[in-house]
């Protein structure tokens, strides 16, 4: 018997690419993030074979959590097939030999850039959002040290000054994506650049949301069934993008977040942004077996937590 026979066969990479120490560190950070909802936990962001800004934060969290039995879905702006999503999915599948899917309800881990699926996720599922800029106070406070102090004191007043300025100048809140929220009545959090439409989906959600910024080396979490409220005035409320009057060209769906396709004559056509969900609707339309799940917004645009949206 030789030493070579006793040792495990040599491999080019560890399982799921990251070495075990890196994964252990990430998991510890994730536990801390879950323990303090909305709090940004610093972590040692590793080098990956993709560039910073292309989802390295989300990818590290996915790689540290993935196991052989997981089913992976990767979304880029609602789309399963765009370059970013396709590459990340292939990479994760190759490194962890896991099954992949486009069905949001079948997936155990969903890594996403800038969208939350339309269908309601359930307990046990993990949504991993890629974050370019984790600090919601960056716009009002340039110093990271000062911003940390403000988080410690829960001194978020300046955010409301920003809202005031928006109302005075534009007559409405103009923050399109990354609308700041207060998590668990304590920490101000940037929900990553998801549209306002998706922000309510994080409130009292059944699934766990992890948000991770690879370049900024910070991750944070919204645990299941946690309060998430967008910042607003008592007399002027947060509202989601108005999707009324928009009908999906392909599936005929209404009151879902739509991609706008500008036409040569100046008009616009629309398709559902969430391609996984749209595929199910299409199948159903053609009489094939498909069961689209319950969505966060019903066909009248009503959010599933009645009374959460005041408009």
């Amino acid at each position, binding site marked *: 018997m030789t030493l070579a026979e006793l040792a495990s066969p040599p491999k080019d990479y560890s399982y799921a690419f990251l070495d075990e120490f890196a994964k252990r560190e990430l998991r510890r950070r994730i536990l801390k993030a879950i323990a303090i909802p909305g709090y940004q936990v610093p972590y040692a962001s590793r080098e990956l074979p993709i560039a910073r800004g292309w989802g390295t934060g989300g990818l590290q969290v996915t790689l540290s959590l993935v196991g052989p039995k997981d089913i992976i879905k990767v979304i880029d702006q609602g789309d399963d097939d765009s370059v970013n999503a396709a590459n990340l999915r292939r990479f994760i599948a190759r490194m962890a030999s896991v099954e992949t899917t486009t069905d949001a309800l079948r997936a155990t881990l969903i890594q996403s850039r800038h969208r939350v699926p339309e269908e309601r996720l359930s307990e046990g599922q993990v949504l991993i959002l890629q974050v370019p800029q984790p600090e919601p106070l960056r716009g009002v406070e340039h110093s990271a040290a000062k911003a940390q*102090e403000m988080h410690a*004191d829960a*001194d978020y*007043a*300046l955010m*409301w*000054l920003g*809202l*005031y*300025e928006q*109302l*005075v*100048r534009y007559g409405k809140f103009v923050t399109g994506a990354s609308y700041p929220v207060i998590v668990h009545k304590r920490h101000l959090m940037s929900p990553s650049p998801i549209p306002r439409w998706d922000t309510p989906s994080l409130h009292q959600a059944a699934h766990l949301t992890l948000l991770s910024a690879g370049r900024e080396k910070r991750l944070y979490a919204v645990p299941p069934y946690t309060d998430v409220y967008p910042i607003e*005035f*008592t*007399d*002027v409320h947060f509202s989601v993008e108005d999707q009324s009057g928009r009908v999906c060209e392909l599936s005929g769906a209404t009151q879902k977040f739509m991609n706008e396709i500008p036409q040569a004559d100046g008009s616009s056509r629309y398709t559902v942004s969430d391609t996984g969900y749209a595929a199910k609707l299409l199948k159903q339309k053609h009489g094939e077996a498909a069961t689209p799940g319950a969505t966060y917004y019903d066909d009248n645009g009503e959010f599933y937590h009645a009374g959460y949206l005041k408009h």
Partner: protein
Amino acid sequence: MLATSNINSIILQSPILVSATPLLRANNFVKRYGRVTAVAGVDVAVYPGEVLGIVGESGSGKSSLLRLLNLEEKPEQGEYYLDLKGYHNVNLLELDRFHQRQVRIHHIGIVYQHPHLGLRMRHTSSGNVAERLIMANERSFAAMRAAARASLASSEFPLDRLDDLPLRLSGGMQQRVQLAKAIALKPELLLLDEPTSGLDVSVQALVLDTLKRLQRERHITIVIVSHDLGVIRTLADRVMVMRHGHVIETGLTDQVLEDPQEAYTQQLVHAKL
């Protein structure tokens, strides 16, 4: 009969300045910047409704003292009391960051010589005033807007320019926005750091007018720092003369400016004349 007893009680009362407890008490303030001692053991007492002027040449420590009184910086030594509800006999310098900020937001207003120190130049003027209300946990847009408008009106700011950026306002108007911001929450104490120094004489007179009217109407306690004896003479009841971080002379304004005792004060008054 009634009149006599009234007169008697009035005569028996000691002067308000003696009987009242001071609103502001600062004992033995010391502040050093490296090897420079900016404030070297200064005691200040200001009574409710009084205007205290602090004069002195550049570098005499008067602006440093004002920053200490505004709880912006921490002195190396000293005790600081404000006679406010909930803060009687509480040394404000021993409070934590959070409570110090609460005191600063609710009870102290400040107007700086340079508007860019006190204002957000790229926010609207009304937004600058609203900031104070937001800091005090106001979350209603309508209430904020109304309060900002009222505050700007009482500092005689032209209301048609309510939502202009301070960047695009004249110096006098910028100072009025600062003043509106400072008085938005009706603070007990107003600190003025050379409020009219950058302004030409006619605008200066108008701003001083506004200050004087506010002081009269709201019975607000003011500490004003200036090197301009004219400003001090117009506003202040009492004067403190500072030099090299020390208070060298203090007394009623007329008394100090008409009959200065210290050589330096005499020089200062004569230089003015």
